[in-house]
């Protein structure tokens, strides 16, 4: 094969790939570009002129450090629980069982399909220490001696919103793992079993490689999604008690829609974005590089 022919083949391929991708990219840029740009502009304007004041106010705020710490705890807690639970449940649901479809629908769809606002008030209600079902049940069963103020204690409240969010969100990772597991031919397991691999061995040699690509993507998407997710916290605790469940986004939401301070909210949103972006860039670098090596 001579040189020009090869390069024109490559060119043709590139053009084909661009043709497939560009319309979508243009669509996104159009719908996203304006909001993002107006957000940026807003964050750099104070009293009608260009200024860094909004950013200064965000950073100099006494709460900034607490918000950062809260955001990280909320994200790390929710994401790791969701990823682990999601994987465990996907593996369970992947076993051939009678009524598999129904099991999957029950376990995956119900929490996910519950609208945020309903999930928030329902959890708040169930966690009520005086008449909530969780305390009542735990005392009856004997796990607790007496009622715990789930949302009234800083530490418990933090844990409670993370658990509620895990309940609401684990299905996302579980579903994509499950779809990934479905691409594994049964024969592979059988072959591994014939080779004498145990459950763990089969998991390592067959399951893990198959879901690896989804592990990375799902992890990254869950992180992005969790940092930016706020309705559950907003309804359950409003950021309290004593600010322990306030995150960047719940605070940015309050700034914009409660205090009508859109400029400062935009600045905080940009900061949030930069945090997420840094994380995603790190991940995608690792992810794509590994993908290219393979």
């Amino acid at each position: 094969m001579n040189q020009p022919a090869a390069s024109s083949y490559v060119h043709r391929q590139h053009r084909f790939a661009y043709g497939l991708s560009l319309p979508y990219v243009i669509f996104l840029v159009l719908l996203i570009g304006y909001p993002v740009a107006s957000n940026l502009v807003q964050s750099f304007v104070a009293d009608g002129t260009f200024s860094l004041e909004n950013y200064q106010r965000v950073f100099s705020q006494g709460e900034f450090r607490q918000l950062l710490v809260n955001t990280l705890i909320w994200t790390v807690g929710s994401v790791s629980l969701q990823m682990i639970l999601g994987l465990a449940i996907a593996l369970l649901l992947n076993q051939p069982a009678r009524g598999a479809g129904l099991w999957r629908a029950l376990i995956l769809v119900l929490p996910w399909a519950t609208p945020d606002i309903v999930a928030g008030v329902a959890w708040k209600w169930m966690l009520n220490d005086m008449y909530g079902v969780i305390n009542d049940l735990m005392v009856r069963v004997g796990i607790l001696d007496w009622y715990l103020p789930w949302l009234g204690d800083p530490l418990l409240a933090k844990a409670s919103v993370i658990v509620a969010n895990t309940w609401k969100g684990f299905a996302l990772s579980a579903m994509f793992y499950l779809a990934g597991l479905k691409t594994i031919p049964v024969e592979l397991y059988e072959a591994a079993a014939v080779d004498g691999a145990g459950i763990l061995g089969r998991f390592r040699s067959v399951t893990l490689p198959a879901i690896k690509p989804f592990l990375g993507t799902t992890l990254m998407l869950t992180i992005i999604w969790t940092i930016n997710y706020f309705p559950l916290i907003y309804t359950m605790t409003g950021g309290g008690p004593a600010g322990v469940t306030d995150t960047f986004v719940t605070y940015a939401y309050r700034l914009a829609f409660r205090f009508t301070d859109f400029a400062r909210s935009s600045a905080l949103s940009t900061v949030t974005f930069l945090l997420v972006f840094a994380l995603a860039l790190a991940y995608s670098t690792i992810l794509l590089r590994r993908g290219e090596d393979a």
Partner: protein
Amino acid sequence: MSGRRVSILLVLALFLMGSTSVAAEPLTVWVGGHIVEQERTWAEIIAGFEEETGIDVEYRLIGFEVYYDNLVTAFSAGTPPDVTFADLGGWVPTFASRGWLEPLDDRLAASEVTDQIWPNLWPTVEYEGNRYGLPWYTDDRLLLYNTKMFEEAGLDPNKPPQTWEELLEYAKILTNPARGTYGYGVSGLKSEVTTLGYMIFLLGNGGKLLTDDYQHVAFNNEAGIEALQFYTDLFTKYRVSPPGTLSYGEDDYRTMMAQGRLAMAIGGPWSFPLIELANPEIKGNYRVAMHPYNTEPASVFGGWASVVSSQSTQKDAAWKFIEYITSYETWREWMRRHGGPMPARMDVAEDAPELSGSNWQVVLDVFPVAAFRPPIPEWPEVSDQIQSMVQNVLAGRMDAATAVRTASENIERILAP
């Protein structure tokens, strides 16, 4: 053949319907607040208005939890309704300062309704010398208590506590953690009700939140610290408020009161139907009284006002609508159907037989001493600081003096021009 003709007719009819609805732009009205049960009443009142005036109204109900945010979004994007409702707790000045509302002074001056509104409501709808809203209904905050629990504890339900000392004394008697019953519910949730709770204690201690010109903090003193100390001590020191205090507000406490597990909390006229809904057997076993105070009787009122969007293209129709729903006849009809809430009109409050019960008498008696929240655009942020202040002390993160100082510094910064 005929099927085709029918479908052509259908398309034509749809087209005509589409074009007429575009031609006559309806008056848009957003109703927020505790409204679900009143859906039918609204529908009928609005139908009555349409019939009388020939003005086409498109109304929408919005849940309270999302109402404020929804209004802010619509106003910001330039798609507000013609008429909407604003909470008397600072919404009107907040919206007016952003240029979202239409001043109503001239229309109010020419209207018969104006003289009938309780005079102390007006400051809540004013901003920089103009009036932007017509108050629609109001209420005041009182001590709501469970008379049966009083009796069981050997207390006289006809003699509710009047001072802070009595409040504490009663609350201690009524508290029995082993049985899961508590004496007084301290609102400690991250929400406006916590601000209101602190305000009642602050005002009852002779203090106030801001200076009269609303330029500076006024609770950064002995009265303010003492009020916060006593309010939070009820939970942290005396434990007469339930363990989950930091997550509860008036509504949670009303439910507990219906269950016979909480004896006293802040409540008001809105509590009457709701506590009976939660437990029909409590009827006759709850009562309201002036909230206990230290040096001065105190209450805070709330309520709603109708406002007109400054971007509205149908301001005359909007005003007509507001006058209609605030008219004597509409209000009497409203009272007849729902037995409440408390109308912003004095004449209706006087005439309505529905307001003659002893509980309602307390509501009306206390109303003259009821204060309002500072009507300033920065109110939501100020209130947020007060909530944090109360929570910090309840959670044991700060002592009362430090919390008051921190909140004062932050609020001064917020109020700085």
